């Protein structure tokens, strides 16, 4: 009897924290349906009507079509490059036991723990000289490189778990190392690759510092920077700020709902870097 009661009591702090977690998001959605004046005078009330217009206007003025295009290009390209270089790297480090492997791991660790400012300044001026600023195609490799350590560590911890017998079976059959990698390891890695894709997608979509520095003109702005500039310019129109915020967040929310386990596991395990 007493256990039942205490169990219910425990829900109280959980509910309080849930409210804390959800309240700002609820406010965001609620605001997106109000007019600017309504938000200013009655911030906490429910909208008087559902102004879907806010969404349409915000989408057009902020140019979200271009933003989605830009962000998608950046995302697709960075993931493609990342997977293409990270999986062989992890394979070589774990299975092929290459010499100098520890040095490489240390370098990757440094990349994760040292501030991004360390590389961004010369990188920007170098890109600028080469005319590569304002190009989503040129930003993508930067993301691939920055998320390389995380991906390699995550893949590495997964590959360690693949029993040696599996690959040896391939070798015995006469497969070269490349074939072992392509025919055996890669198919087995589908789950962890999914995790990498899920987590990195989220990070790239939301990323701010590099996108701010490398994408200037309106044509090429990613969603995150587009949102930032739009809400900076129209800061007085709080309805636009809210509606555009909801639209910005929606893709990731969808990703999260469908791939929740991947995202959560990936972020936590990747940070715990095996």
């Amino acid at each position, binding site marked *: 009897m007493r256990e039942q009661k205490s169990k219910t009591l425990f829900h109280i702090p959980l509910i309080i924290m849930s409210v804390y977690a959800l309240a700002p998001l609820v406010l965001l959605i609620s605001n997106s349906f109000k007019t600017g*004046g309504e938000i*200013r005078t009655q911030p906490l009330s429910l909208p008087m009507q559902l102004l879907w217009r806010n969404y349409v206007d915000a989408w057009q003025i902020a140019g979200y079509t271009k933003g989605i295009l830009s962000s998608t290009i950046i995302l697709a390209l960075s993931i493609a490059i990342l997977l293409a270089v990270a999986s062989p790297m992890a394979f070589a480090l774990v299975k092929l036991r290459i010499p100098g492997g520890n040095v490489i791991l240390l370098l990757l660790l440094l990349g994760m723990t040292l501030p991004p400012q360390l590389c961004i300044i010369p990188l920007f*001026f170098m890109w*600028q*000289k*080469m*005319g590569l*600023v*304002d190009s989503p195609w040129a930003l993508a490799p930067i993301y691939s490189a920055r998320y390389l350590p995380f991906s390699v560590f995550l893949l590495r911890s997964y590959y360690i778990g693949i029993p040696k017998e599996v690959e040896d079976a391939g070798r015995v059959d006469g497969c070269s190392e490349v074939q072992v990698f392509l025919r055996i390891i890669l198919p087995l890695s589908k789950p962890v690759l999914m995790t990498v894709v899920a987590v990195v997608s989220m990070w790239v979509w939301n990323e701010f510092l590099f996108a701010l520095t490398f994408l*200037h*003109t*309106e044509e090429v702005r990613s969603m995150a920077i587009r949102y930032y*500039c739009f809400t*900076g*310019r*129209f*800061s*007085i129109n709080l309805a636009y700020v809210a509606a555009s915020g909801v639209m910005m967040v929606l893709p990731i929310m969808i990703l999260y709902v469908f791939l929740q386990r991947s995202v959560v596991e990936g972020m936590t395990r990747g940070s715990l870097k095996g």
Partner: protein
Amino acid sequence: MGKKKLIAIGIVVVLGIALGSFTSASAKKVTLVWWTEYHAARIYDAIRETIEKPFEIANPDVDLKVEYFPDYDRILRTALVAEAGPDIIDLHGPSYAIEYVDANMLLLLDEYAEKFGWKEKIFPWAIACSMYKGHLTSLPVHYETMLLWYNRTMFEEKGWNLATDWDSFVSLCEKQDAAGVIPLTYGSVDFVIANSWMTSIFFSCIAGPENVKRVLTGEMKWTEEPFKKAIEKYRFLWQKGWISEKQSAALALDDSWGLWQDKRAAMKFEGTWALQNVFDFSKGFDWDWAPIPQLEPGVVPPVIMGIGSNIALNAKTEHPDQAATFLDFLFSDPKRAGRIMDAARGEFWVPIKLSKADFPPEFDERMIRCFEYMGEGMASGNIGYCTWTFWPPKTDAFQYQNLDSVVLDRMSIEDYLASSQEIFEQELAEGRVPTLP
């Protein structure tokens, strides 16, 4: 007979070739690209109707492309560094040109000035501050002044009168504060340069234009009494909570207009560019402007002059002559200037001699008064100095960046002025102080 025919045919052939090459030459169009900072849609249209189209009609061999960018500074820089960029460049003021000139990115305009007579067409003081190290580096394309904007309807309803001196200004603020209204609305979180509006007003109106002139030529030091007083008075107003209830560092520019619209604020210190916003944010009441009251006994309030925009040519342009022709086009016709001043509302006040007759009939009466006010100021010679036009760049930057620290008591006025002096002395030695009229 045969000979005559031959000659005739010969003439026809020669004419044909000449005509052919003539038409093919005119079929080759020169494209000029002009980059300008993001403006409201109203200005796009204004520029297209009053500048772009007429210019292309007057110069059929030129195709003018106008491109607009928010976040303009960074995009411009990036393009110039990559040796790309437009033919015609807008800049926020003469001091922005200095850095680019040092990096040899701008075309010096002295020859064209001779050719087109710009020094005669454009106000001399505006030309003077666009010179750097003896060369004309850019042309001033928009001049402005600082004013006090106020909600006329609110003043009438509450029975308030405009202030005539410091004491009446202070008591006006007190009355407004007591009535639950913010006396001066202002926000700078997204544009810290806005602090230079305040430094411009307070230095010129309290330290006085004579002293400002002296300090900018090195005769006086920033640490002296008049400048101290200027900042002290600003700090006084701010710490009383009369400037956005001490929240100015957390408010955006647009927020300050939001307060204006919501009738939670009565007045605003801003330049003529406020015309951009004041019409849109004054729905339901009437607004007006007044000259800045006399904030310091003994200092006649000057008409503070500044250059808001200037225009320069890319050193790497392939069509300097056509580009220079375009520059001249902006300054040659007073009626055109009048039209764009009306359409652009507070931007593009071309610094050439205009008369009331040059303005279109719909030109708002308050803007005409403003124009006359500036004209009187220039004629009388009692002008003040906007920091973004007459200060060397680093000194201006230091002052607007650290003004918040001063009013928040995180930096003493002495330190603020002492550091200003240090930075200024170095820029003076480097020849970066603009020429004063």
